[in-house]
């Protein structure tokens, strides 16, 4: 029913728009309006629609509370005898009865009557809602329409409403971010009450105990995050070693060498890499690349574990190639043509021009692209979860198996967990540090990219 009402309000507001616009047009004859007719139309529509919508939202959120309070008041004698839990239960039964949910068993003698009353009151409330929304909408429409004069500043007030709307939208986005960070901070704080900060940041052993239930005894794990972060960095390093050169080379190819037709076809294909779900990369890494790496290693006489940082890093590198290539392509393309021509006119070849003029000019942007790619690599979960491993292993050898921050977060939150268990809480602490790392990387990258943009202004 609410949906119909909303639709009706919209129709009415639309009607208000035409009414306002036509009225403004009709009085415009021979003189100048302060605002264009459509602003008058929007103004009327807003006055018609907004108050009615707000009323509707408030009504719908408070109606059940009020109606149930009324029902309870009429049953005051019986309810007073009940404990709080019982009262809640009784109310639930009444509600279910009223909604006609079949098979509701009740042993309350007054439930049937109460349910009938609830239904009746709800129906009355609904009629009242329709009536009052209609009154508010029509009143708003009529009032706003009668306000239309030559001088009336419809444009200004529409702008004001629009500004408020925009502000509220961005406020929601910002508040959500702030809320996430705050909850991260709060939970991390809980964790650091149980595990000292220095132990977490500098400890060399990561081995959270798995406590199935609280009474199973002390969940004394080791929470030294160094191996987890070193694993993350190792994999990110391997990934960048793959993605950096390939991404940069393809960016140079697309921006400087490729003929337009080749570029138009090949570039979207490369960017498709970014659209492949990471799970797919994950099993590609686990089932194809990891065994391949192992075999190659064995042939070279190297000890390679079944799950290795190398396999995960290589696949992650492939995943972030398009990041680097398309960002670097953008900055290289942004290098003014006049610099290229200046270099060619000096008798430089194309590769000399790229090496000595274009790269130095685009360097800050390229660095920015790299940093963004690294922060992407650090935050990646799926590939490492499938191909790298779960054991926190402090090593710099990419042939061994390592784990990463994101994987440990997943592990910490999987399964039945006590919520105040350090193991569970460690996820938040890891998340916080990871967040701080990527935040710093992003800020630095954006600063560099921005400085670069200003360079040619």
């Amino acid at each position, binding site marked *: 029913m609410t949906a119909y009402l909303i639709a009706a309000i919209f129709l009415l507001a639309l009607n208000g728009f035409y009414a306002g616009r036509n009225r403004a047009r009709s009085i415009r004859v021979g003189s100048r309006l302060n605002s264009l007719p459509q602003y008058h139309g929007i103004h009327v529509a807003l006055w018609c629609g907004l108050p009615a919508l707000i009323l509707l939202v408030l009504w719908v959120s408070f109606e059940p509370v009020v109606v149930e309070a009324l029902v309870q008041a009429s049953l005051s004698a019986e309810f007073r005898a009940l404990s709080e839990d019982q009262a809640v239960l009784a109310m639930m039964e009444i509600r279910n009865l009223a909604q006609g949910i079949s098979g509701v068993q009740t042993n309350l003698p007054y439930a049937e009557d109460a349910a009938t009353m609830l239904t009746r009151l709800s129906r009355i409330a609904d009629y009242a809602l329709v009536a009052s929304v209609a009154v508010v909408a029509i009143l708003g429409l009529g009032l706003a329409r009668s306000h239309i004069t030559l001088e009336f500043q419809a444009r200004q007030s529409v702008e004001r409403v629009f500004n408020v709307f925009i502000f509220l939208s961005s406020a929601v986005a910002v508040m959500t971010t702030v809320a996430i960070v705050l909850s991260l901070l709060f939970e991390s704080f809980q964790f650091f009450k149980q595990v000292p900060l220095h132990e977490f940041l500098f400890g060399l052993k990561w081995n959270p105990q798995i406590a199935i239930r609280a009474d199973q005894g002390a969940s004394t794990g080791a929470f030294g995050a160094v191996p987890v972060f070193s694993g993350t960095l190792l994999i990110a390093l391997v990934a960048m070693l793959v993605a950096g050169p390939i991404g940069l080379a393809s960016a140079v190819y697309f921006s400087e060498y490729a003929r*337009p037709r080749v570029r138009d076809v090949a570039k979207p294909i490369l960017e498709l890499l970014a659209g492949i779900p990471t799970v797919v990369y994950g099993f590609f890494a686990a089932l194809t690349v990891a065994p391949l790496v192992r075999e190659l290693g064995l042939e070279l006489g190297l000890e390679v574990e079944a799950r290795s940082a190398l396999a995960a890093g290589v696949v992650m590198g492939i995943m972030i190639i398009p990041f680097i290539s398309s960002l670097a392509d953008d900055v290289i393309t942004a290098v*003014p043509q*006049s*610099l*290229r*021509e*200046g*270099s*060619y*006119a*000096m*008798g*430089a*070849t194309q590769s*000399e021009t790229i090496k*000595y*003029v274009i790269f*130095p*000019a685009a360097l800050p942007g390229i660095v920015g692209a790299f940093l963004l790619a690294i922060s992407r690599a650090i935050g990646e979960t799926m590939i490492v979860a499938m191909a790298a491993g779960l054991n926190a292993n402090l090593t710099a050898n990419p042939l061994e198996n390592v784990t990463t921050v994101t994987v440990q977060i997943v592990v910490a939150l999987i399964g039945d967990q006590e919520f105040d268990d350090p193991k569970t809480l460690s996820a938040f602490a890891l998340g916080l540090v990871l967040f701080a790392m990527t935040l710093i990387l992003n800020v630095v990258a954006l600063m560099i990219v921005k400085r670069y943009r200003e*360079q040619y202004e």
Partner: protein
Amino acid sequence: MIDSTPRAPGSKGVLADTLEQDAPLGSVQTVGEALLENPSVSCRDVAVHYGDKQALFDINLDMGTNEVLALIGPSGCGKTTFLRCINRMNDTIQGCRVSGTIKIDDEEINHADADVVSLRSRVGMVFQKPNPFPKSIYDNIAYGPRIHALTASNEELDQIVEDSLKRAGLWKEVADRLQAPGTGLSGGQQQRLCIARAIAVNPDVILMDEPCSALDPIATARIEELIDELRENFTIAIVTHSMQQAARVSQRTAYFHMGSLVEVGSTDQIFTNPRQRLTEDYITGRFG
């Protein structure tokens, strides 16, 4: 075809009608002394197409040693296009085709096998908008000598940088900050930096495309002085929209119109006694 007899001022001819329609002139007979003995640069039947559109029609024009040739004409008439033929910069434009023969010191440069790198080291170019590289002043000047390996030692390179800056009249202003970025200079200084960069490789020919269009009168005067000095050692072609500038710096002037070379002659003659109605209309400011 244009008849090459001088016209009495004020008489209206075939050309004026063509002009009013604003259509390309097509292939026309150039009036005046387009060809020289012992030219430094010689162009024969040079035509340029951008895709299907023809921008230059059968240009025959020589540039003499130690002279400044001014290229004038209304916007879009092909001055830049012509200039860029001489150092093959049109190669960098997709779909641009240049036909005809262009010789520099009797060496054919407009064919596929010609060595573009060595050509451009002999033909410097200064662009309309100063385009210093985002490098230090020193590195800007040293760019050409470095890529062509002209110097055997750092001292030699320092010397070239200093000489080039001195010849471009910029040395005094930047001598104490050679390591500062070239982009940090003023517009006029940047343009002189670009000129210094071009002469650092000691080219035979310098092409300048409206080098003063972004500059104030003082900076313009300095660059004009500079062009006059450089004439002793280089062959110079300069595109300009300023009649006064053409009159001040050049010895010969070529008037382009809608892709054709209409008239060439000594600067004095072109400005005092043009033989073509189009030329006269343009230099007296009746259009363009």
